């Protein structure tokens, strides 16, 4: 397996979060290249590299940047999404705590390309200790005169999963509840107080310096044709060495788990795996066998790559309990704006609880799938469709286990 370190290059270096150490290891070198290009040329490089958003969606970053007006009368903004709340995902915190200057450099390059004068970093409230490291780095950058043309401000969240959805994030920054906005019919930028705004994930922005400095071709050296580059994949759950390890797209899933994760804990067998945060459909061990880690392969397996944060479950895992745990999360985190989501998450959570309490009937299992169907495609954002897909994948792939628990019911 080829080692590749584009974003994680400085992670192992002691004190790499300080400006002096980061600079000694090449930070802000891409800034010198920047002035050789026009903003539109930078956007073209990002498009040529086919950099895809690393927050879960995988949409083309360059195409998103192109939507930003180059000659706007209103000010343009960049909002960096560090609301990392998807269970199983803990990669952005590595960037802001171990190499914050890489993010700041990426922000400067991005702001130059989209002609923004102010960038906000929306950091989830629970990350205060990492946010402090990032704030120190920003202060250092101000003192060193690096932020003359562009301001950077941290905006602290306060514990709402949905604020990772880009429009909910902007609502939250505007001082409101984190309710996702209706999507426009045509492609357009996002809006922050009516001003054109670009929202990108931390890791997406942190990938920009490498691409600007080394060119699109150097980035495309890694990964597959359709999913170029690398991702900070992560593992948690029943593996020997959980953690974040950068790998190129197209890496074999099992090789990754065995090489970096040291295999399944206690010599057990793999039973199931959730590939990219709990919002992705669960995979059985058999499905994982020949799978590669890229957007296309995971989509073909009727799941999704998501954030690349894999949750590994061994042979002793009770899948009904696992689904209950996930549904409790969604029940708690639904923003409550759309009825199918607000009611559906609670209802399905209660139903699986009923199954676990051995008070369910066979009809309840069908009812669960019926609720899942009602939640799919009828809401403002993709929260409810994700819950729906999770329920269908768990019940569909482990139906025997669910039926066995149901059959133990008293009535």
């Amino acid at each position: 397996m080829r080692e590749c370190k584009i974003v994680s290059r400085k992670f192992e270096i002691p004190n790499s979060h300080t400006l002096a150490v980061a600079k000694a290891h090449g930070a802000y070198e891409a800034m010198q290249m920047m002035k050789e290009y026009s903003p539109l040329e930078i956007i073209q490089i990002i498009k040529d590299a086919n950099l895809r958003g690393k927050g879960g969606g995988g949409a083309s970053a360059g195409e998103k940047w192109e939507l930003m007006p180059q000659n706007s009368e209103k000010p343009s903004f960049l909002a960096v999404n560090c609301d990392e709340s998807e269970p199983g995902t803990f990669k952005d915190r590595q960037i802001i705590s171990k190499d914050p200057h890489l993010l700041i450099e990426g922000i400067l390059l991005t702001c130059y390309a989209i002609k923004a004068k102010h960038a906000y970093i929306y950091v989830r409230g629970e990350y205060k200790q990492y946010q402090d490291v990032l704030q120190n780095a920003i202060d250092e950058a101000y003192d060193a005169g690096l932020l003359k043309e562009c301001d950077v401000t941290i905006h602290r969240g306060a514990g709402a999963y949905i604020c990772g959805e880009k429009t909910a994030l902007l609502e939250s920054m505007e001082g409101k509840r984190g309710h996702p906005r209706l999507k426009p019919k045509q492609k357009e930028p996002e809006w922050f107080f009516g001003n054109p705004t670009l929202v990108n994930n931390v890791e997406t922005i942190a990938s920009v310096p490498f691409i600007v400095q080394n060119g699109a071709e150097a980035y495309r050296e890694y990964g597959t044709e359709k999913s170029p580059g690398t991702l900070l994949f992560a593992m948690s759950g029943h593996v020997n060495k959980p953690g974040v390890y950068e790998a190129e797209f197209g890496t074999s899933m099992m090789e990754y788990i065995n090489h970096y994760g040291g295999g399944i804990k206690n010599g057990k067998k793999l039973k199931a795996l959730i590939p990219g945060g709990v919002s992705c459909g669960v995979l059985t061990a058999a499905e994982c066998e020949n799978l590669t880690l890229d957007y296309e392969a995971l989509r073909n397996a009727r799941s999704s790559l998501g954030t690349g944060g894999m949750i590994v479950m061994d042979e002793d895992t009770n899948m009904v309990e696992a689904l209950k745990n996930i549904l409790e999360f969604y029940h708690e985190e639904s923003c409550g704006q759309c009825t199918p989501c607000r009611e559906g998450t609670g209802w399905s959570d209660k139903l699986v609880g009923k199954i676990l309490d051995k008070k369910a009937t066979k009809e309840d299992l069908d009812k669960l799938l019926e609720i899942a169907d009602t939640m799919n495609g009828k809401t403002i954002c993709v929260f409810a469709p994700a819950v729906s897909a999770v329920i269908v994948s768990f019940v569909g792939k482990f139906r025997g286990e669910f039926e066995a628990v149901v059959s133990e019911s008293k009535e």
Partner: protein
Amino acid sequence: MSFTFTDENLAKIKELKKRYPSPEALCLPCLWMAQRQDGFIKIDAIDEISKHTTLPPMEIYRVATFYTMFTLSPYEKLNVQVCKTLSCKLCGSDAILERLKSKDVNVTHVECLGSCGTAPVMQINDMNYENLTPDKVDSILEELS
């Protein structure tokens, strides 16, 4: 429950106002400052924040009750937040919760804290305590008391 921002926070608010296109954006930052000042958000703080953000008090109340990290009543004891989401659950958060039952603290079950690779985890006063075992919980709480 009268409330006024400290001079230090008033200076911060003034500084932050320059950094946003509209004062409504100060809603979350002001709520954080109010909570930090008193340990919880006093109801009178909402009127005060309304003046700085131009948002109606009801809107600020709506926001304060939406986000789980804001509290409108004080914690009587040390607040220990334990992550109960999947990775922590798989790695033994139940045993952590069990051990905490015997402690004189306020235990809150929270959703994913973003420490899945170092599970199980609990958060006390914005600090993460990772790779927990029941015995580690004992020593951490002893140190904090």
